[in-house]
């Protein structure tokens, strides 16, 4: 074949370019707590090759290049100042990739612990916690070195917010999952279609609804929110569609109803899955494009240009199928098991909120710098344990555990009190228990959980889906059913 007849092409198709640009995942150390530099929580260090970590700049005898912590966002990769934490030695750690984890050697004066065990050297994998005694806590996660580009979230036209702080709508997190959520909310906000939010209790469904409203052209109008489970069946139509004056009884005031109130705005109905099927039918007509409805006691047809954002923690299948079909956008809100690196940021945010509302908490548990309230005094082992706890009620559960720690504290710091300890579990099934999981058990769990890696990992009591992926590899299984035929 001559050169001109070659079938090879230099033209790069868009999906090929996207795959090429996608950064390869690698282990990261994410700063989860720092005694001297609390403002740096959330900064991360990508371990792509051997690196040293320690206080200050490079030393002449460093065995590897200095790792530089960075504030990573989808549109930025901001290299940060060298560590200034006095409790960290000038050469504290040497870290390098090993398999799907990171091999860490401790060379500094402070003891190192991996998942609570004191070691001088060890391999930490996704979900593991590395503590430098009384100095810093790092969470290990595997993620791309660059976060994926966002498609709809427009950083330029959204009020800027501090790294690690709440965004203008209240979402806290710098993880890949948190940014994916922001992007999904922005996309859902950019259309007039109705949205269904799915997620376990406490994942932040109201924050999601407020984000969608705030990012939409409807944001200037008031956000209308109601819990669907509190609406009595007999008054459902009146609640939703309002009533004419003097209907059904003389003297009754005219009411616009939730749909009327939300005209031009967003109506958030939480716990929509608790609405009986026959009640879901009441919403079908108004959810169609024209938003037509009638107030009780009125013959005229009204129109409301409202956007419904409904939320449920029940399985999608529990909703009536034609009701479900009205929701063009379905967003599954990531639980904390998918964004553990955000836990320390959420802890900081929740404690800040607690201090703002409760002066006694602020006075007892917070440092003061230049006369102003500064960082909370929080024990590193509490942060380390929270990073490994399998949450069932997510942000709400962190809040409850923090208040338990505050309420049972005996000193001037928020720590791992016996009461808190009794509530915490270690999300990691022990290495031995993982090794004991046989092929059949894993294959059955995979089939029982619709082959969802996250749900299967949870069902097997694994720390995260990465542990499951290792297990699948070991047993020659795959997430896709046809790859191994295990559940045929």
């Amino acid at each position: 074949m001559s050169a001109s007849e070659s079938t090879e092409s230099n033209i790069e198709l868009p999906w090929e370019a996207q795959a090429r640009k996608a950064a390869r995942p690698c282990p990261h150390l994410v700063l989860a707590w720092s005694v001297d530099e609390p403002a740096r929580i959330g900064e991360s260090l990508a371990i792509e090759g051997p690196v040293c970590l320690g206080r200050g700049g490079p030393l002449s005898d460093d065995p590897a290049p200095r790792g530089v912590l960075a504030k990573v966002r989808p549109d930025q990769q901001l290299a940060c100042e060298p560590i200034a934490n006095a409790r960290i030695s000038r050469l504290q750690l040497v870290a390098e990739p090993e398999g799907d984890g990171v091999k860490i050697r401790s060379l500094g004066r402070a003891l190192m612990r991996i998942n609570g065990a004191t070691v001088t050297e060890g391999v930490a994998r996704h979900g593991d916690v590395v503590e430098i005694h009384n100095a810093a806590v790092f969470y290990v996660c595997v993620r791309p070195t660059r976060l994926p580009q966002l498609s709809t979230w427009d950083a330029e036209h959204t009020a800027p917010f501090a790294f690690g702080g709440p965004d203008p709508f209240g979402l806290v997190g710098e993880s890949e999952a948190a940014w994916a959520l922001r992007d999904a909310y922005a996309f859902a906000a950019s259309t007039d279609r109705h949205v269904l939010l799915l997620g376990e209790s406490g994942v932040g469904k109201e924050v999601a609804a407020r984000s969608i409203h705030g990012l939409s052209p409807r944001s200037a109008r008031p956000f209308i929110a109601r819990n669907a489970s509190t609406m009595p069946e007999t008054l459902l139509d009146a609640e939703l569609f309002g009533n004419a004056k003097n209907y059904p009884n003389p003297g009754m005031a005219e009411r616009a109803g939730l749909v009327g109130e939300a005209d031009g705005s967003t109506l958030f109905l939480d716990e929509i899955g608790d609405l009986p099927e026959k009640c879901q039918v009441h919403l079908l007509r108004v959810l169609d494009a024209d938003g037509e409805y009638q107030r009780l006691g009125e013959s005229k047809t009204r129109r409301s240009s409202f956007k419904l954002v409904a939320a449920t923690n029940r399985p999608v299948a529990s909703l009536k199928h034609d009701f479900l079909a009205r929701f063009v956008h379905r967003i599954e809100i990531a639980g904390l098991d998918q964004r553990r690196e955000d836990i320390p940021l959420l802890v900081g945010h929740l404690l800040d909120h607690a201090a703002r509302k409760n002066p006694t908490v602020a006075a007892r548990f917070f440092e003061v710098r230049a006369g102003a309230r500064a960082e909370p005094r929080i024990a590193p082992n509490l942060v380390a344990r929270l990073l490994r706890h399998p949450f069932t009620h997510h942000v709400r559960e962190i809040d409850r555990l923090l208040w338990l720690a505050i309420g049972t504290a005996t000193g001037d710091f928020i720590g791992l009190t016996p009461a808190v300890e009794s509530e915490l579990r270690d999300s990691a099934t022990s290495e031995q228990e993982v090794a004991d999981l046989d092929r059949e058990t894993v294959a059955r769990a995979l089939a029982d959980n619709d082959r969802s890696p996250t749900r299967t990992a949870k069902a097997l009591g694994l720390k995260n889906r990465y542990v499951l992926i290792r297990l699948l590899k070991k047993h020659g299984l795959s997430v896709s059913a046809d790859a191994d035929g295990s559940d045929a």
Partner: protein
Amino acid sequence: MTIDAKVLRDTLEIALTRDDFAERFYARLFAQHPECQPLFKRNSAGAQNKMFAQKLCAIVDAIEEPERVVAEASAIAKTHAEYGVRDEMYGWVGDALVATLRDANGDDWSDEAERSWSAAYEALAAAIRAPRAG
């Protein structure tokens, strides 16, 4: 007098293995010179301890780079003037610092360490006082 940077760093590393190093320094300073204590009211004790240890590390880490030490000294001079620190207090701080380091290092403390720390602190205090003198 020569300052041995390695001695400074090694002795500081040992001292900082004690979680209460900064706390002991302030306890000593305030016990010997109670009039210093009101000057530290703007920060909580925990925050003050962290700031002290962090600043001390920053200076010792940069000890071979005079321009960085001078920059640190200028920053200290500016804030301390605002707090009402008087010149003689720098001597009190130096004495308390060297004594706390000596205690923390125990048997590892040497005459060389004593000389290096005294000389380094004297040079730093002179740099802090210099802008005011000028």
